[in-house]
């Protein structure tokens, strides 16, 4: 799926969070790195219309994220830094089903798709668990399942391995690597994006580097060392 930024700029209360960005993304695995406050989350949120460009435009598969907001958002799934915040209903299976119910699907299909997505991520045993009681790794998997059940073509993950132990970090790395969907990962975990197709480095609201992982990570290390 093609994501195109055309002079996309974001300003918050007069401060520029993202300077005019011209970019086209179509790779299957894209990493975004940068120091805190560098504009990487703002850039990612532009993709599914959570943030609107102050100037310029962003299109997802040809759909403008402002003019065709709903359709564009339907093509992208977003996993927040704290995935607990996006689990809206108390029981996991009900939370997953709720996303489908809002799309007007029949009960039988909702049940079938909920079961299928839980099995896909090997978390069927968590179906009746309360979401606030899930561990960090379980919450990440549950959040990914709850977003992918609606069938987006693109999944954006904001720091998915943040605060996870080594075991759960490896689990999320394997999961991300196995996803057939296009994936964009914002992360400080450089190991996670080593095998990616393309890595973008943001610094002070600008795209500072854009290349294969090894070169981009090198550029990021230089920025971080300054």
């Amino acid at each position, binding site marked *: 799926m093609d994501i195109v930024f055309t002079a996309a700029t974001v300003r918050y209360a007069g401060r520029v969070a993202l300077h005019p960005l011209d970019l086209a993304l179509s790779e299957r695995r894209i990493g975004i790195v940068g120091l805190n406050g560098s504009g990487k989350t703002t850039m990612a949120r532009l993709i599914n219309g*959570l943030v609107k460009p102050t100037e310029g435009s962003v299109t997802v598969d040809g759909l403008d994220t402002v003019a065709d907001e709903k359709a564009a958002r339907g093509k992208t799934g977003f996993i*927040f830094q704290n995935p607990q915040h996006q689990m809206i209903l*108390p*029981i996991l299976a*009900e939370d997953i089903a*709720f*996303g489908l119910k809002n799309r007007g699907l029949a009960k039988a299909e909702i049940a079938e798709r909920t079961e299928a997505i839980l099995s896909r991520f090997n978390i069927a045993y968590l179906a009746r668990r309360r979401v606030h009681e899930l561990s960090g790794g379980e919450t990440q998997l549950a959040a990914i399942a709850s*977003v992918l059940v609606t069938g987006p073509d693109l999944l954006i993950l904001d720091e998915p391995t943040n605060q996870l132990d080594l075991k759960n970090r490896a689990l999320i790395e394997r999961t991300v690597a196995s996803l057939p969907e296009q994936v964009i990962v914002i992360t400080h975990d450089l190991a996670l994006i080593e095998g990616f197709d393309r890595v973008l480095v943001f610094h002070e609201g600008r795209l500072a580097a854009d290349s294969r992982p090894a070169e981009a990570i090198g550029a990021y290390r230089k920025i971080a060392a300054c």
Partner: protein
Amino acid sequence: MLNALDIEGDSPLHRMPVRGKLVLLFSAAVGLFVVSDLRLLVPALALSAWLLLSTGIGTGQAFRRTRFVLFTVLLVAAANYVFVSPHEAAVVFCRLAALVLLAAAVTATTGISAFMDEIARLLTPLERYGFVRAADVSLAVGLVIRFVPEILSRYRDIAEAHRARGLPVRPLTTLVPLIILTLKDADTIAMAIDARGFRRH
């Protein structure tokens, strides 16, 4: 009371439609407050207890779920015993305890999702006249139930942080950060609702 406390089962209450259960609960609430005869209230309390246990919840779990409210009911009854009469205390206890147990039985047999659907259906007529957005109200109810444990957990964290710093846990110094952090979370949650396409308009 509906904090994901429903248990799977096939009891008569499980099979009863959500609307039927809410009507039953509402009628029981009205009925129990009209009646003051212990010959009716004691059997009503026994029936409520039986209904709760018939859900397959188990005595221990049933007690754990209702003990806090029942303790409060007991305090109210004790106050009536001291200030009014022993008979009035018994009436108040039977009346409120019966209602608590019946509500717990409804809770144990009703999933939050089904409950939200019913709220949305009940409010749909009001939506036609532009008074409410039924789906939003049901979503709000779901959110309240979902995030109560989060807020409690955050309160515990703040209280623990106070203790770790050797500070006394005072309402003002715990509630202010709790409110600020909760409001901050609310922004992210609102964004997540949009991101997941939960609102239809």
